[in-house]
């Protein structure tokens, strides 16, 4: 098995990153805290699953935290996201309450979806998180409609539409990017490219080196960024946001990253080597961002570790509290299927 060396267009230049000066300190701290919360949340969810407290399955994004946080960090509060089954990161980045989110994992009535959706379908509509779909690529056509409504309402809001590398092989991806481009919809299409569609490495299922090359066929900009560099993601997505907000239409941002865990809970990692996984663990986006912050003089080591610890504590509290919440009742489920 070969270890793939991925190619990216944009890497942060060596030395101090200019965003350390341009972004407020609070914003940088917010980004680090959200990344740490995602990591601890998923580790906690995994632990609860192993202990038999979480039902079903889950798709962890451990190792991919820079993509969701770096992109959501570019948004205004009223902007929107729609995402996918590996969506815990987007949800936390968009501002989910960790306790309500954990309650959903535990299937409780007080969860985001009242226990009807679970890990794979978390939505927080008032918070601008328009939900996660479990069908690969299935959120992309819906994103076209959301973008269309924004455009028809003359809104200044934009939408980030997330999907994985595997989704770009779906027909829905093609139909949707073509339509969104034709109508110049205010959408940024973001590929959370962890390189594997379940077991299939992208090099075995597409005859191109970079997913961003696909943008050319829709006449929109496409860029592949180092998806483990939260500041590189931020820069690329911000440029795409501006294009979307100014009526010029969508872009495709391909965030190249890696998932440390298997596809879901049944994965035995038969399709990749332990060495490959270890190599990517050395590229941990959280450690990397901490070092950027400390070495760039934006924060002290104590400050970044303080943020890390605060995230861990928040997740621990969320899990403790969520475990006390009530289970939903199976009565009258039919009454919830249709809107009155």
């Amino acid at each position, binding site marked *: 098995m070969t270890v793939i060396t991925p190619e990216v267009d944009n890497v942060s230049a060596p030395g101090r990153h200019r965003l350390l000066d341009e972004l407020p300190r609070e914003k940088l701290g917010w980004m680090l805290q959200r990344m740490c919360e995602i990591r601890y949340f998923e580790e906690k969810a995994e632990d609860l699953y192993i202990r038999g407290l979480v039902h079903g399955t889950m798709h962890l994004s451990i190792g991919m935290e820079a993509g969701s946080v770096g992109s959501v960090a570019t948004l205004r509060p009223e902007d929107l996201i*729609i995402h996918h089954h590996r969506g815990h990161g987007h949800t936390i980045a968009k501002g989910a309450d960790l306790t309500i989110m954990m309650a959903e994992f535990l299937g409780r009535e007080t*969860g*985001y*979806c*009242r*226990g*009807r*959706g679970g890990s794979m*379908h978390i*939505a927080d*509509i*008032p918070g601008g998180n*328009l*939900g996660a*779909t*479990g*069908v690969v690529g*299935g*959120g*992309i*056509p*819906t*994103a*076209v*409609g*959301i*973008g*269309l*409504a*924004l455009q*028809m*309402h003359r809104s200044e809001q934009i939408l980030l539409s997330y999907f994985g590398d595997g989704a770009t092989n779906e*027909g*829905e991806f093609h*139909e*949707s990017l*073509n*339509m969104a481009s*034709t109508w110049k919809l205010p959408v940024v299409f973001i590929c959370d490219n962890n390189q594997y569609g379940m077991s299939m490495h992208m090099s075995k299922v597409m005859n191109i080196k970079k997913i961003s090359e696909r943008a050319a066929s829709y006449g929109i900009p496409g860029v592949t960024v180092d998806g483990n560099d939260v500041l590189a993601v931020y820069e690329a997505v911000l440029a795409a946001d501006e294009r979307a907000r100014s009526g010029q239409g969508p872009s495709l941002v391909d965030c190249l990253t890696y998932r440390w865990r298997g596809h879901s809970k049944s994965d035995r990692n038969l399709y990749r080597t332990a060495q490959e996984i270890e190599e990517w663990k050395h590229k941990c986006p959280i450690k990397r961002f901490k070092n950027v912050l400390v070495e760039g003089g934006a924060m002290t080591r104590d400050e970044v570790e303080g943020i890390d610890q605060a995230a861990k504590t928040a997740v621990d509290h969320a899990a403790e509290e969520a475990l006390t919440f009530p289970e939903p009742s199976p009565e009258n489920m*039919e009454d*919830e*299927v*249709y*809107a*009155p």
Partner: protein
Amino acid sequence: MITETKREITYLEAVREALVQEMRTDKEVFLIGEDVGTYGGAFGVSKGMLEEFGPERVRDTPISEAAIAGAATGAALMGMRPVMEVMFMDFLTISTNQLVNAAAKMRFMFGGKCSIPMVIRAPSGSGTGAAAQHSQSLEAWFVNVPGIKVVAPSTPYDAKGLLIAAIRDNNPVLFMEHKLLYRMKGPVPEEPYSIPLKSADVKREGRDLTIVAYSIMVPRALEAAEKLTAEGIDVEVVDPRSLKPLDEETIVRSVSKTGRVLIAHEAPRTGGFGGELAAMVAESEAFDYLDVPIRRLAGRDVPIPYNRTLERAAVPQVEDIVAAARALAQEGK
């Protein structure tokens, strides 16, 4: 149910009138689909609408049925009321992921915290020589998906009132328009009106047996009923109009009165909606009133063939309904 009106228009015009009137009163309503703009729709339903409402609200699309369904679903999630036209019901196969996995499920899956008010207009049915991929009646697929409603009007009056109700409904509604009905004329009031979705209509009263029929089978059943009058057989025709939600009460009441029921639809018999109707009657109090077993008359279990004779033979025609109803009326006597 029919209000007094002298004006007669076609089923196709009734569909257009409902669209136009709703678009005039609610700016969130828009039409989206292939060739609905300049072309006026493959069957001419939206003729003239581009001129009145402009290209944003009478929106031509690429040939992309999945993205069209997604565009409608996403816009509905944002509070708009899109009406998507699929050129032929058969092409819903390409839209199905968005309709079945997204539109139908979002409300429930997200804990009841959103709604998807959209209409999927689908020209359905055979009889036009369009063969296997442009002639299907796929209602049974969608009736089996919680979260979608399914409507199948049989008259111009019902088409207008049910489409207005479907547009105002806060859920995805699949609206079947039978292609052979487009030219049918009938009385339709000019003012907007809506027909509640869960309301079957007794299209003809009779004593001897009940025919439950929807869409194209309603005019065929009514014609069959006229022919049987001469033989002294008095047929009642009940049109459920919406298959989901289903007005069970009106059907049960009719079958309890006549004691005999024939269920007619165009879609293939196996797994067809007729099975559901039969089961519903069998489980109801009407079972005690049945003099003979419930009978179904449905499409044959074949793809719709091209050849004129074969095409006619694949789905129930007036003479088939006459024969089946006559046999049912005489059974056990």
